[in-house]
């Protein structure tokens, strides 16, 4: 094996794949029953983290970065003058197996530029997955990219070998898509998504009758949207995310702050800053929707098309709904506790357990993993009340900002100095 040649290809094709955010390796249920290699059950594992702080769980590469499309936001678009490379199927298989055996990774995330046609590309991706499963007896995690426009038959076959399938919607609005990816139609994205959704439903139904039903994408499907490329609002993004969660049964929607990779009049200029804070706030909002019982309308609406950047969306919601607070931690129900700024789901469970035994005081609460610097203004407990809650929302926000050290504080330094 020519390691240097492989290393060159890996350099090019890992570099081109890194803009795909997803690295999840959780939620599958592939046991190693055959005495073969690997398993992927339940919890995912992040084997390392890159210097940008992102998890490395899968070998995330493109099969090739040759592409017939010319999407403005994409680094591998055909008009971009970059080195191109292509892996052979066996090369990807060898890399995956050898990395996996050394405990570097949980599995493979394979995507590709589109060469010849959508179906032709999809076939090659499936060939890699098939080889891993059938010839190498590999039970690790496989995430395949659904190529926009791939046929239903291929999407069916892909799900038989993959744990997760994803197709990236990339541009949250249809007008944005027309502007930046004129070769692609909205339906090209939704068609494979729909097929996968229906197959997952069918698989789950058949599983109830026959537990030997061949697995179909047991870790579900996901998608990704670029943030900050087309002037879309947070409301556009979160409403469309809600749409995909609800109508396509998505396991995850990822948000990817646009990193300028091309100079193009339609896009932010090269070198402009990646909207990291905005991306972070969107993820926080996403969590509120999925785990904290919020509906998207409570966070964003026509009057409020953007999330606050200086405070998190839960605090922002609470400040707009001061009439609901303070809540008593010793009596409030679970749903309401989860809505208190500074109390996370783990904190909720701790409180629910502990209060069965005794009335909780500040002393107890301070030993739990809560962000009391925020929470204390929204709760009461068995101790005497020391935090004056007859505050205006505006004052309270400044007070909290002043007393906490946000990692984004430097970005808002100007606003804060007004109150110093």
């Amino acid at each position: 094996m020519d390691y240097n040649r492989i290393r060159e290809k890996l350099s090019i094709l890992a570099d081109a794949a890194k803009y795909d955010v997803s690295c999840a390796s959780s939620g599958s249920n592939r046991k190693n029953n055959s005495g073969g290699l690997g398993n992927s059950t339940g919890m995912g594992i992040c084997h390392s983290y890159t210097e940008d702080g992102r998890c490395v769980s899968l070998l995330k590469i493109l099969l090739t970065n040759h592409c017939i499309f010319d999407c403005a936001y994409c680094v591998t678009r055909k008009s971009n003058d970059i080195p191109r490379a292509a892996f052979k199927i066996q090369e990807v298989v060898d890399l995956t197996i050898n990395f996996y055996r050394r405990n570097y990774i949980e599995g493979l995330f394979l995507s590709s530029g589109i060469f010849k046609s959508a179906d032709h590309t999809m076939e090659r991706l499936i060939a890699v997955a098939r080889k891993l499963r059938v010839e190498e007896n590999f039970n690790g995690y496989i995430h395949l990219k659904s190529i926009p426009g791939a046929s239903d038959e291929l999407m069916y076959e892909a799900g038989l070998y993959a744990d997760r399938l994803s197709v990236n919607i990339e541009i949250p609005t249809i007008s944005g898509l027309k502007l930046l990816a004129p070769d692609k139609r909205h339906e090209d994205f939704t068609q494979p998504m729909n097929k996968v959704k229906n197959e997952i439903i069918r698989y789950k139904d058949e599983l109830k009758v026959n537990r030997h039903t061949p697995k179909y994408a047991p870790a579900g499907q996901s998608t990704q949207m670029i943030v900050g490329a087309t002037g879309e609002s947070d409301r556009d993004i979160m409403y469309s995310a809600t749409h995909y969660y609800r109508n396509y049964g998505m396991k995850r929607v990822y948000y990817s702050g646009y990193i300028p990779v091309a100079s193009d009049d339609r896009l932010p200029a090269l070198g402009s800053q990646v909207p990291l804070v905005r991306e972070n706030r969107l993820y926080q909002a996403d969590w509120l929707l999925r785990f904290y019982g919020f509906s998207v309308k409570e966070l964003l609406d026509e009057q409020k098309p953007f999330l606050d950047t200086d405070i998190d969306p839960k605090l922002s919601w609470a400040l707009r709904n001061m009439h609901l607070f303070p809540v008593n931690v010793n009596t409030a129900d679970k749903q309401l506790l989860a809505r208190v700024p500074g109390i996370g789901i783990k904190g909720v469970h701790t409180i629910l357990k502990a209060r069965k035994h005794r009335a909780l005081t500040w002393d107890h609460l301070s030993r739990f993993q809560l962000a009391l610097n925020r929470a204390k203004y929204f709760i009461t407990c068995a101790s005497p009340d020391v935090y004056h809650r007859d505050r205006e929302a505006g004052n309270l926000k400044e007070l909290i900002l002043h007393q906490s050290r946000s990692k984004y504080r430097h970005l808002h330094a100007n606003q804060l100095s007004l109150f110093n």
Partner: protein
Amino acid sequence: MEQATILLYDGSFNGFLTAVFKTYSDKIATVDIQRADKGQHGLFSDAVHVVTDTALAQRVWHGIRKKSGQAIKEIYFAFLSEQEGIERLLLSYIRRIFSEVRAVRSDLGNEMVLRIEQLARKVGREKHRMEAFVRFQLTADGIYFANIEPDFNVLPLISRHFRSRYADQEWIIYDLKRNYGLHYDGSCISLINMDLPKSFTNTLQLGDEFHESEASYQELWGTYFQKTNIRSRINKKLHEQHVPRRYWKYLSEKKPLQALPGA
């Protein structure tokens, strides 16, 4: 004043549970349980050596499990933290579990209960880290070898994970701090002690005890690790939070990378 009796055990979890059994069967009131090799018993106390008895240990194990399956797991995890005084803490916890009708584990407003829960969680985190950070290096005789220095004694906890994952390869995970390891020979796991000439960190030069392809794969992995990073998003603080520096020396991706020839 009643004489304080100290039970000395061999350091194993079964040994500890045997000692717990003794406190009940011999009705010992004031008691501490200490490892025989670390015992610092005072002048005015009796020290009694407890001989580990798996059958007695099992009775305690099942007794606790009958009260709460989660509690016994938590006790085991907390025990493996090897914290100073952990035996005394766990003993009073176990006593409370046996003496009360209602569940004790959820009483997180109680300092002891909370402390044990937190310790168990810390050990759980270290277990998960080791499942992530073990880096096997293929030896010349075909064994996937890794050495580690975990903060807590997590080898017993990770053994099942690695066995079911790497069922078709021979491997060794060796804890340098506690000087013992797991060896899987393709069918079962045994505990081993080795006289390692040195620790095998992620050095650039691999000795000839390793397979000829090993250096190449480490280089490929290192290349991947660098190329998958997005420079414009750099956040080293977050990086070090997730991968604390003390783990770096055994991580293959943290070794300096030689430039590609011709690049």
